[in-house]
């Protein structure tokens, strides 16, 4: 096993790093379209960032890059901002920002629900 949460678009590598923490992937009834729709402990793969350039750049520096797997973790009381695990670190975002992070759809063979 090499670099966890690597930056390449090879999804198999992403899943490997995630599967070390969570077990048993299974498909959800309908797949979440944005990061904000993901439930705590689920995981999704980033497709693109629908945000102004400076915000998108900052998010990419924090690890929110296309192809990276994101797992929502705990949140502040009231459900936001929420902490997201991405690329080896934890970053807190408000819902309005998470809603602009578009996830890849399962037809592309990525988004999966993982049991915590």
């Amino acid at each position: 096993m090499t670099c966890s949460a690597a930056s390449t678009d090879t999804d198999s590598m992403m899943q490997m790093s995630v599967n070390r923490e969570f077990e048993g992937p299974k498909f959800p009834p309908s797949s979440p379209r944005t990061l904000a729709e993901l439930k705590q402990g689920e995981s999704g793969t980033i497709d693109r960032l629908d945000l102004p350039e400076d915000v998108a750049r900052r998010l990419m520096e924090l690890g929110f890059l296309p192809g990276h797997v994101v797992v929502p973790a705990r949140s502040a009381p009231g459900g936001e901002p929420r902490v997201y695990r991405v690329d080896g670190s934890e970053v807190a975002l408000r819902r309005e920002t998470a809603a602009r992070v578009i996830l890849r759809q399962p037809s592309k063979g990525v988004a999966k629900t993982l049991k915590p």
Partner: protein
Amino acid sequence: MSDCHSCGNCAVAAPPPKLSKATRSHVVAIIGPPNSGKSTLFNRLTGLRQKVANFPGVTVEQRIGRARTTSDRDIVLIDLPGVYSLNPRSEDERVTHDVLKGEMKDAPKPDAVLLILDSTNLGRHLVLAAPILSLKLPTLVILNMADDLAHRGGNVDTAELASQLGAPVALISATKGDGIQKVFQFIVGTAGGTTSLAAPKVELPILQDIPRCRQWAHQVGTGAAYQAPAPPLWTRRLDAVFLHPVAGPLIFLAVVAGVFQTIFSGAKPLMDGLQALIEHGSKWVGNIFPEGIFRSLLVDGVGHGVGSVVVFLPQILLLFLFIGILEDSGYLARAALIADRTMAKFGLQGKSFIPLLSAYACAVPAIMATRTIESKRDRLATILIAPLMTCSARLPVYTLIIAAFIHERPLLGPLLGTQAGALLGLYALGFLAAIVTARLLKSSILKSERTPFMLEMPPYRMPTLRSLGLRLLDRSKVFLRRAGTVILAVTLVLWVLLHLPLHDGKPPEIEHSFAGMIGHSVEPAIKPLGFNWKIGIGLISSLAAREVIVGTLGTIYGVEDTGDNSVGLRQRLQSELTPGGAVALLIFFAFAMQCMSTIAVVRRETGGWKWPALQFAYMTFLAYLGALITNQVMSSGLII
């Protein structure tokens, strides 16, 4: 930002024009992403041989120190604010960018760079290596948190990483000191001019393309057989408690309440001790000098004026100790997360919470800490409201007036008395004024789109005694310097104004002294607030710093003991002020911007006089209006 030479692309460091006498000193910059342990490394390398350029901010401050080495050359280390990239967006990123490029005024271009990265998150942290290595300065890549990496089962081949990057690599633990020798060797080596950069095995990516950079970092990491460690279990366990939907906010409130309680009660023995020490010193000085003008200057001016302020050092240090623990442990980021929704209601964001919390200690470091806020308008709003938060300089004033005018009665059983309640009320009032002002600003002149909140949650770490100790030492120096300069100067000027003009070679009655004349001239304006001309002198002298009024009133009343616990000063105040005037004075101090240091730092941070002038006018207006209404309502007998 720079008005000196522009040599952005120079590969070799040119001797900085400003440092003509220090051309032989070797400048090494420490750079790294936030939470990579830069400051810990800096403390390790410099120890006590460091200084803060001005005031220590909570996270953003350019610190300079001398390396603890036995080199012929003077080695100067610069600790730069943490950055993710060299594309400057926030103010502290700009500082880092400008220093590294040699475009920073008054800062020499570095001769060598220490790039510090978190080895437990190398994949992402290596991204910063690309822009740093492209600067072509001698660079040591430091992989920090080696102990954590090994403990959590990660691994990296440093020799291979070095050849991949074309730069030497050291795996260290800055907290424990492991591997620090290699860093010293590198610094001394570059000072001797022996180190040169090799060509990287993996060609550097286009720096503007973040996905490419990240891919490059991955490629380099894989090449060096990097194995990421298991997730930090303790951080997850602690977050389950601190970010629990119910327990989290309760702990948050308990932490804030605990901090205040300890500051009020915990510092008391230390302050009493210091007070006794100063009184002793004053008496001793009084005994060795003969009766006369010089003794009066020393005892009344220096002893009582400055001494009554120095007494508050323990309280201020305790507050900074708490802020240090909260920040170093990683809890402050969680607190900002919890506070974000509340801050958003007032048009600000969670990141503003950190400077506002530190404004409870002092607005100056708080205003400097706003540099982490990317949005210019949010940053400005935070700067403008920070002085409304109840800073520690208000404490002496509050304590004195409350003790004189508010009778101690139980308010909430034995938990809270009326005096502590009044103090808490004043803190609440300051906070309320701050957030309402923020709302006003953010819905008018500083209106902007809601800026996104993006905050990295660092893993929890045990604060080290070394870093906490150095922080407190910094603070003590700053505080004592201020007491020894601004406060001393004001007290001395006041003392002179109280003793002039001479009548038949004798000092006049206070009422006919220059100070008295000044007080009388402002009396018509402050009479409606319930203040007489003596309070007027106090208000004018406290324009320099709030706590000066305590020393001023003490000197004016000619009471021997001017400390905040002084019975004499308290009794004199009771005869000088009506209850309405006393409460009006409290309200005045809650709102007024009487602090030259704050005005100076706002001017520097906003780059002009416009904002500090506006801020001063607004806060003085608020203070005057608040005090006027209070006094008029209370003296008309409507309440109390």
